[in-house]
């Protein structure tokens, strides 16, 4: 019988080490401040570019500047959902506790970005459509994404036991992810069906290069803000779970069995 000591377990993959809240908290604390500073810089540079260093649109005039927040918000709405879908896999397949926390942290942020995209889209379209809301195919798809986000947030609040809630939401998120492309297609089809005439599309002409730089910088600014808030909300979520555990310990320690 081979008595050699078992080989030392391979150092856990980086992802697994993050499962330990202390490791994550230490990393988050180190990253938060620099990321916050970067976010502010990106916003400053982006807004400057958006207002001063780029031309007005020959057709829409100045209102095209709304694009610099509408489009990044749309990017982040989808980026946050993609992040949640990946975390959902992390929860269901790898049972990674940090994935649960990442999922829960991302939902309200994603909803916020989607709401920004909706409002700015409606305001941007107002001069063209003459109404505050037009069931435009793209805007309507964003509305549905917003409703899916609200559903996910409602499910988070409905189930109080963290572990079970994370798995339930993971399933809903993945089902949503599978359905969003189908929704996008069916809404486009629905819109063109009723609106054969080519109505002025919201994304306007191809983007002029001088507009591209501010747009990308604003996109980066939104992304950095998302990451900062994600780290903050994940730390909060880890703290809330620890509070729940400590309460149970306090209950046991409280005796009176």
């Amino acid at each position: 019988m081979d008595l050699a000591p078992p080989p030392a377990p391979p150092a856990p993959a980086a992802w697994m080490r993050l499962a330990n809240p202390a490791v994550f908290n230490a990393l988050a604390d180190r990253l938060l401040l620099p990321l916050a500073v970067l976010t502010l810089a990106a916003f400053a540079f982006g807004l400057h570019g958006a207002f001063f260093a780029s031309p007005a649109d020959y057709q829409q005039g100045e209102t095209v500047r709304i694009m610099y927040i509408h489009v990044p918000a749309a990017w982040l709405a989808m980026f946050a959902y993609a992040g949640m879908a990946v975390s959902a896999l992390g929860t269901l397949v790898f049972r990674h506790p940090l994935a649960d926390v990442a999922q829960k942290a991302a939902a309200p942020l994603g909803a916020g970005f989607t709401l920004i995209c909706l409002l700015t889209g409606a305001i941007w379209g107002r001069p063209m459509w003459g109404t505050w809301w037009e069931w435009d195919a793209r805007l309507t798809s964003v509305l549905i994404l917003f409703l899916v986000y609200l559903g996910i947030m409602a499910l988070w609040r409905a189930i109080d036991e963290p572990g079970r809630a994370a798995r339930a939401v993971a399933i809903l998120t993945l089902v949503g992810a599978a359905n969003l492309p189908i929704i996008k297609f069916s809404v486009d089809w629905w819109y063109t069906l009723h609106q054969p005439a080519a109505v002025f599309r919201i994304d306007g002409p191809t983007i002029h290069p001088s507009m591209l730089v501010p747009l990308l910088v604003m996109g980066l600014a939104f992304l950095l803000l998302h990451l900062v808030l994600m780290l903050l909300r994940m730390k909060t979520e880890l703290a809330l779970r620890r509070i729940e555990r400590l309460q149970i310990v306090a209950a046991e320690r409280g005796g009176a069995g």
Partner: protein
Amino acid sequence: MTLPAPRFAPGLRLVAEGLAMRRGHRHLFAGLDLALASGGVLRLAGPNGSGKTTLIRLLAGFLKPEAGTIRWEGMPAEAEPALLIHYHGHREGLREALTPRENLAFAAALLGGEPGRIAPALATLGALPLADLPVHVLSAGQRRRVALARLLVAPRPVWLLDEPLAALDQAGQALIGALLAAHRAAGGLAVVATHQPIAVEAAILDLGARGAALSGEREA
């Protein structure tokens, strides 16, 4: 933090005559009489399903008997029975999302107790350390103690307790005996449904035996 002992009017009497109650087609009990005066403790014995809970809920006024009457004699002038009664059932009447302190504060406002009595009542039941934890993290025994604290938060002369010893450990059960003794000394009365003996001297009404005799009569 002392708990001032309540003083109850001595003249109170519960008189029930010819009570009959059925569950579905089965007769639980019929022609049941009972009388209990201030300072009295009555233990309802008998196996599960012998009608202990039903009788307690009848006395609490939650149910109407099929036959017979329930009278309260010597009641203070404008009071009505419901204001004299504390009911303690299987379901503790505590909302899980709230903490013991919040639940008892609500009970105090609802049943006419004083908020000042909450901490001493919890302390008497040995549950003060649990005061601000959400009830959903508490064990069954701890919830039972918090619910029993309600009896002390809003002093009322009549205690109707349905299986108060359930989920309690030895210390808890002795505590119930002490509370009942104190209640009796203050001039209150109590009806306790339990199949375990309680550590206080009490008259016993065995519904199990009555039920057997009852069904025996009908078949004979």
